[in-house]
């Protein structure tokens, strides 16, 4: 019997097709694979792949459900961020991205038959451009961290320089990704001091290190610690005086209330778009947002696919992929990046999320998270230094507990609560420091449960 996903595996069909080709066995089609490397069918069929045999849908479900049953449920959404945020995923977003026409499409190389997909991606680029106040956003990178690494590679091409300045408290995983991407190019990354009182970048230290060999200065906004740096614009000016690019890492929802990177002098802005209504997904898929301001050299050196508005030969508004001469399929070894597959479906999800909330909804969401994170910080201040840093913050904050943060976290886990990221070993943080995230998914009761449970284990 034919396999449901392989229509031509029906015997009759196979025979008809083989007849036209002029063969009597499918094996003949593999005659050019030398015998010594060709894998015998009987041996292949006995390999330990899957359960060793085909499964019906019912059998598969039983198996998969048993695996998913061994994913534990928590008492409250995780109080964990560190570059991603727990966020509710609206059903309408899921419904949009599971439309077969979108989900099972390829990159829209053939514009005329892909207008809907192209428009959706153009709208994603445009919505991000509005949030960022930057003119050009590509149609996505893999995630925030690889977007940042590509921004640094781009800064090297634009400036011809190889030194980077980053905040010492920057997201440690992002730092590692940057190191990997830069490793073949003899580039160096230097840390700039962050004020231990306010959590903001030390501008004197930045000024002192911003010499004429710096390719880019990187600012996290908000910082890994949740701190909103009031020196963001000044840091950009320091970068530009040194002839360096100013790269900002932002969080899109907060830009509905925060001054956007375009208004702070950013040349390149990158973001993890996961917070735009995507799930945490145990690490992915996420969404790398990548934007530049309107400048010929920046646009020319930008990685990734870009959708543009044009017209059809009939004069109707139409969309197509543009500025492709930067890309690998045309420029090969001289391309701005090797990126091909991106995170288009996640960009579509983000776009749907932004549209569902609208301008006022995004602002309400950002404020909602601001309030709840402040409320949580206040609650924890009953028994901890909370918040540890005095700067303004959103979503996340550092607390200094009276005991080791790892131990506290372990004990809370036994109570079904996932409480933050211990910061020991990162920058100048101590073993008692914990990074907590609070968003709209946490109710007041959740926050109080966190606070009371923590109090109990102190």
């Amino acid at each position, binding site marked *: 019997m034919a396999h449901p996903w392989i229509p031509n595996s029906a015997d009759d069909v196979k025979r008809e097709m083989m007849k036209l080709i002029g063969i009597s066995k499918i094996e003949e089609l593999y005659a050019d694979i030398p015998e010594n490397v060709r894998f015998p069918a009987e041996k292949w069929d006995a390999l330990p792949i899957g359960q060793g045999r085909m499964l019906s849908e019912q059998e598969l479900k039983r198996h998969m459900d048993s695996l998913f049953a061994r*994913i534990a449920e928590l008492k409250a959404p995780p109080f964990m961020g560190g570059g991603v945020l727990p966020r509710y995923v609206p059903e309408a977003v899921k419904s949009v991205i599971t439309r077969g026409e979108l989900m099972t499409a390829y990159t829209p190389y053939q514009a005329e038959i892909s207008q809907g997909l192209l428009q959706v991606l153009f709208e994603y680029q445009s919505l991000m451009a509005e949030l960022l106040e930057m003119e050009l956003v590509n149609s996505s990178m*893999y995630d925030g961290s690889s977007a940042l690494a590509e921004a640094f590679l781009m800064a090297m091409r634009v400036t011809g320089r190889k030194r980077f300045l980053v905040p010492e408290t920057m997201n440690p995983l992002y730092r590692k990704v940057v190191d990997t991407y830069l*490793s*073949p190019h003899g580039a160096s990354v230097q840390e700039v001091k962050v004020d231990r009182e306010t959590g903001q970048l030390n501008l004197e230290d930045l000024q002192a290190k911003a010499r004429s060999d710096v390719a880019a200065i990187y600012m996290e906004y908000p910082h890994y610690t949740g701190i909103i740096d009031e020196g963001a614009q000044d840091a950009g000016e320091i970068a530009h005086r040194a002839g360096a690019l100013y790269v900002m890492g932002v969080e899109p929802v907060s830009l*509905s209330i925060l001054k956007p990177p375009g208004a702070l002098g950013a040349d390149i802005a990158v973001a993890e778009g996961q917070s735009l209504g995507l799930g945490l997904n145990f690490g992915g898929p996420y969404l790398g947002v990548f934007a530049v301001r309107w400048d010929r050299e920046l646009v020319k050196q930008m990685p990734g696919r870009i959708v543009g508005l044009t017209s059809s030969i009939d004069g109707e508004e139409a969309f197509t992929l*543009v500025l492709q001469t930067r890309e690998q399929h045309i420029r090969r070894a001289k391309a701005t990046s090797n990126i091909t597959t991106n*995170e288009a479906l996640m960009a579509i999800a983000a776009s749907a999320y932004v549209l569902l909330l609208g301008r006022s909804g995004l602002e309400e969401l950002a404020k909602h998270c601001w309030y709840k994170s402040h409320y949580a910080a206040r609650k924890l201040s009953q028994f901890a230094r909370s918040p540890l840093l005095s700067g303004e913050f959103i979503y996340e904050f550092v607390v200094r507990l009276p005991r080791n943060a790892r131990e506290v976290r372990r004990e809370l886990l036994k109570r079904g609560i996932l409480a933050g990221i211990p910061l020991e070993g990162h920058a100048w943080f101590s073993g008692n420091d914990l990074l907590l995230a609070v968003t709209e998914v946490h109710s007041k009761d959740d926050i109080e449960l966190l606070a009371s449970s923590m109090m109990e284990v102190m």
Partner: protein
Amino acid sequence: MFRQAKWNEPLVFQMGREGRRGFLLPPLEEEITRAVGEFSLAEKVRRNSPPEIPSLSEVEVVRHFTRLSQMAYGVDVGPVPLGSCTMKYNPKVALRYAFHEKLSFLHPLVDDELVQGLLEALYHLERWLAVITGMDACTLHPAAGSQGELTGALLIRKYHELRGDAQRTEIIVPDSAHGTNPATGTMAGFKVIEIPTAEDGNVDVEAIKSVLGPRTAGIMATVPSTLGLFDEKALEVAELVHGAGGLVYHDGANLNGILGKARPGDIGADIVHLNLHKTFSSPHGGGGPGAGPVCVKDIEVRDGIRLSQLLPGYRVVKEGNSYRLEGPGPYSIGYLRAWFGNVSPLLWAYTYIASMGPRGLREAGEIAVLNTNYFASLIKSRSEKYTIPFGEGRFRKHEVVVSAQRLQEETGVNAEDLAKGLLDAGFYAPTIYFPLIVKEALMVEFTESETKENIDAFAERLIELEGMAMQDPKLLKDMPRNTARARVDNAKANHPRTVTPSWRVKVLRERGKLTTL
């Protein structure tokens, strides 16, 4: 006859009304606002003017995307025979798990004991991929094929570095390779040495011999090639490269062509990347997400250091009956992205492989190859103008590259025109103008998912277009007409004075506030 939906759907910026909302947040408890006090931000970081984002109801948003989706085309709609893209059917049962509700709140740093079921799946997926490719160890970390390629190139780099062999700065790439290969070579800091393809479709072994030397870091080989041919010299080439001290990397994008018949590990590969969104059925999503695992032979690098220790990202380790994640060790190339990997496509591939088992996978590969050669036979027996260059008389694997060079020379109708003519009949077009070594290339890959009826109709249409070109080339220059839009103006789309990559650019330009790019 085919007619694509044509909605005059405005841009969202032209839709909606102030005050509408598509999604409600839970109320913010009064006790919270009272305790925290008035929301305020310092002027230096406060946004002055709200972003230009429209206000829509949920019904408007859903209709907008539904209408736009009806002007898009995926495997769920019809054949997408894009060569080297392996656009196979994406089984629906996998959707349930790839986007499972439980994943929404699974933070990537969640403790191992909470996610044993998930880790078990990922552990087995890694093992299955190793068995399928004939390799020893894999990482599921890379987010896509091109990131897998970069992983491969960085592994080669690190291998030589650890061996104190830093002068190996050259990477060999055949001229038929995907553009990502040379681009990856550059990203990994290598000098890319391009070598030609011989007339029989295999790489030119003499050309390889002439460039091998003490600077050779390795080769990036695509097996089967973008011509759809299994390289009969693959093993010989691998031995030559190994003999010169280099490593052999296989671009596994075309694995479907040898699935169940030959394994990269048995034909000399030290490293191979896979595209789960190709061979293992996770959907392309209009461009992504993908997943690009990398598998290696566990060869010794030096002094007991194994190649698997260089792999990036977290790997799942089994201890007794439990699983845990292990971060990269001291010899690893590190992380190519934050956190584990693209878990949804990984789970999709898991469900696909679990459903198919070894026999199902073998059959998928066989029928994909049958489909390719059936189509090639149709073209050869019916067409007067189309040719299939390279490897005369050889069977193809996952794909076949048809050249319209003669048609173009005689009628002016080129590969792009033919692509548009296919769209007009309700097919997606093949990959065109690639590989670069074939003039007026149409690169066709049906995969095992396509029906004989559709392959017949597709070939029929190509023959029909050939006839139309001979009679009146203008007919094809005017296509497509049955799609949502007629042919797009690419010159306007890319001109520095008119290029419009966002609504913001359109508005600023109309207000005279934008310079020429």
